[in-house]
């Protein structure tokens, strides 16, 4: 009697958490839960978004499970069957950080960012440049003719210029909207 109990407990340890049968083509998740690869594959297919471990809801994915190879397992290659079980991962002792794949991905990831930034920055650039132009034109004039003028006059001039540019900005925005 105790022997059969032991036996059932032993096999239960290696049961797939989905089909409740002894795991075939077994894979194990990073969180330590055992599944048949076909069972887990089907679950991952059911939920393409937000893939979680069926047992503990930890994040899980095709690349984050490890195949288990026991001694004297099935003679047929599991990968011949559909769906294939993912390969085991062997980490190289020194990972090449700036690999060609990594660099490529980096450029690709940044490109759209640059693009959107350029478009977004265009009106600001326009404002900034026109402002500078005005400032350049205004400043010599001040120096030449209004040097003696009091600070009040100076402020008025500034206010006028800022009002002018506020209007310009409004008109420009309107034009942007119309176009």
């Amino acid at each position: 009697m105790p022997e059969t109990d032991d036996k059932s407990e032993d096999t239960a340890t290696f049961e797939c958490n989905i089909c409740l049968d002894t795991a075939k083509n077994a894979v194990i998740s990073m969180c330590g839960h055992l599944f048949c690869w076909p069972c887990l594959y089907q679950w991952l297919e059911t939920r393409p978004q937000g893939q979680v471990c069926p047992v503990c809801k930890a994040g899980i994915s095709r690349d984050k499970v490890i195949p288990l190879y026991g001694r004297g397992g099935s003679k047929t290659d599991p990968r011949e069957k559909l769906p294939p079980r993912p390969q085991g991962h062997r980490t190289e002792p020194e990972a090449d950080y700036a690999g060609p794949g990594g660099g490529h991905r980096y450029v690709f990831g940044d490109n759209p960012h640059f693009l959107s930034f350029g478009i977004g920055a265009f009106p600001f650039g326009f404002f900034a440049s026109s402002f500078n132009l005005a400032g350049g034109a205004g400043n010599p004039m001040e120096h030449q003719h209004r040097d003696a003028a009091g600070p009040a006059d100076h402020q008025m001039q500034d206010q006028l210029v800022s009002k002018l540019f506020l209007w310009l900005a409004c008109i420009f925005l309107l034009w942007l909207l119309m176009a």
Partner: protein
Amino acid sequence: METNSSSGSLLNKRLQKELMSMQREPSPGVSINSHTLHGNSLSQWIIDMEGAEGTLYEGEKFQLLFKFSSKYPFDSPEVTFVGPNIPVNPHVYSNGHICLSILTEDWSPALSVQAVCLSIVSMLSSCKEKKRPPDNTLYVKTCSKNPKKTKWWYHDDSV
């Protein structure tokens, strides 16, 4: 073709295994109504449930209907209260529909009939006041027959 037949056998095999383990190690207050299992394909089970001792439902008896689709265990079972006694509970509608997240979006194939039953027993046991959900009348009038078609809004995490 191949996946279809294999998922079909997975369904039956798994239901057989669940049935055996529930009969071998039954949880207190939860048992399979064996009359419902005769002569059909295991696709519908009726579970007899008793209210847990020391709770508002002590001494009451309920029946749960489980319907399994061909995609079980990847798809959750359809679970409703049936029979003459539907528990009066803020998460159970008077038509037997149950608002419980593991029955829809939080379902996992590692859950089982037994796990669902235990969740429902504990949902009932944590109840402090017997009352129907606030939107019961409207929901029962307008809902689909299948509770899985309801877009549930889970708001009470205390259960």
